[in-house]
């Protein structure tokens, strides 16, 4: 009960802390418009007008991914800068319970990017929000956000160890967009990317959302997404315990 309360209170307070950042607010206002535009023009130029909604959903998932990636890296780095990383890691709790609320919070704030991309797509480009499975879309969106939060936990383990976590986050953003087929179908990518795509929860999350949008078997994709994410949670939990010890040995919890 105490663990559940810690996760809930922690997630809510981190959402509050992240959503009050002027930088985050500015990004949240601008990025969805850019992404909606990108998606619409990309698909219009290829003559696939009928897939505009699918494009907007893909662009929205890109927003969730960016939020989780920069949120996990940025939040850990931000906490290092503001001196709170040491304070939370000092708590007598398993590191996974301390970091998971942060990454789930970044997933939740990323939901805004998904919604905003759809809204801008509707307002600016007149994309009709006709989902093939509206209820499945909502479930898929929730699972996708939670799943990406768990994936973020695995990433966060690396960020706790690295003083320059942002450098890693910057290099991961575009490759994962591409490989997961958020915008461009995986089928047009080189064959060697297929195994990488298969193990990324982002691939299956994006696929589930696409299937809920344009029709298709949502649940298998969503199940695989959730399974991989739970594996990330377990691996992240172990990695964090190991990494926390290494960070104490290498003195990387603080800035100096």
């Amino acid at each position: 009960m105490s663990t559940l309360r810690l996760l809930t209170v922690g997630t809510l307070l981190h959402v509050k802390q992240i959503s009050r950042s002027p930088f985050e607010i500015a990004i949240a206002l601008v990025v969805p418009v850019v992404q909606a535009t990108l998606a619409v023009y990309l698909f219009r130029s290829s003559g696939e007008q009928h897939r505009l909604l699918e494009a907007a959903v893909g662009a929205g998932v890109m927003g969730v991914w960016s939020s989780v990636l920069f949120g996990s890296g940025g939040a850990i780095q931000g906490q290092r800068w503001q001196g709170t990383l040491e304070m939370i890691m000092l708590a007598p709790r398993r590191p996974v319970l301390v970091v998971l609320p942060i990454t789930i919070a970044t997933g939740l704030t990323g939901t805004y990017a998904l919604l905003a991309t759809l809204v801008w797509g509707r307002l600016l480009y007149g994309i009709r929000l006709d989902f093939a499975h509206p209820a499945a879309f909502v479930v898929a969106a929730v699972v996708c956000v939670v799943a990406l939060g768990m994936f973020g936990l695995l990433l966060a383990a690396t960020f706790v160890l690295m003083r320059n976590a942002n450098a890693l986050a910057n290099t991961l953003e575009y490759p994962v967009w591409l490989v997961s087929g958020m915008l461009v179908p995986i089928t047009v990518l080189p064959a060697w990317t297929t195994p990488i795509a298969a193990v990324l929860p982002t691939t299956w999350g994006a696929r589930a959302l696409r299937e809920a949008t344009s029709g298709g078997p949502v649940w298998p994709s969503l199940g695989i997404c959730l399974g991989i994410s739970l594996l990330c949670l377990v691996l992240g939990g172990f990695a964090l315990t190991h990494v926390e010890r290494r960070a104490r040995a290498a003195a990387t919890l603080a800035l100096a």
Partner: protein
Amino acid sequence: MGSAYAIEAEELRRTYRARTGWLKPRRTEVEAVRGVTFTVGRGELFGLLGPNGAGKTTTIKMLNTLLIPTSGRARVCGHDVERETREVRRRIGYVFGGDRGLYDRLSALDNLRYFAELYAVPAREQKGRIAELLDLVGLAGRERERVEGYSRGMRQRLHIARGLLHSPDVLFLDEPSIGVDPVAARELRRTVADLASTGTTVLLTTHYMAEADELCDRIAVIADGCIQALGTPAELRRRAEGRRVVEVEAYGVPESAVDALRGLPGVRETAVEARGALQLLTVHSDAHVDVQSDVLRELAGIRLGRVDSREPTLEDAYVAIVSAAA
């Protein structure tokens, strides 16, 4: 309770290793703490005093589990800081000075609620405990304001409230009064003294002599990563016995004049402290040698303010110990 001591440090050492550059990596090593040994009794208020870079914070971070010692052992309430991390963490509170360490965009109440959860304070006790601590640190009524609007003194008091949420047996205070105005610093000292009087063991690091003198049962002076002296404030003060101190306020003292003062017969140490345009020269000499007239002769032609000759204080003893270590 187990051990008779709240804190035991035995030959603690910590080396920081860093690597810079990719193509031609350069490795550097800094030995921040070099074999520190001391014990702190239960309920004792123990001071760790030393100049910047002496190893105070590194020592505290090894004791509170944030850093793993390179070698040596430490126990807090009988638990090993390296192997029994969670047991140690349950029993300690950590407060450091300065602006950092709080969620600025959240209110004080949110900060305290979050840390109460992290420290597993039972839900039914949280409300009462937080209200009690807000009262203790004088933030009651301001708890719903965002921390980013708080003064440094208020942040410091919030830090203390957070450190006490789980009623720790041992409280580590790392330069808590840094940058705090004199009135707030006095209130802070009163809070720390009250805590110690209720049985909490406190390990305090500070630059401020008056603070250490007023609060601490015992003080360890640390310099260059080693403990140079350890005792009660009265015992440390006696280190400066047999000395006399001449203090001169001056303006624009050249380095050559300070060197000349060092060479005067009977002079043991000299120190120069810049206070805006003014420089405060402190000259320690043997008590039986009157160096005041010699000092003034060497400073002839330099604009002087107040000149004072006095008995040594704890600060002078500290300067003597640290200078001897340099």
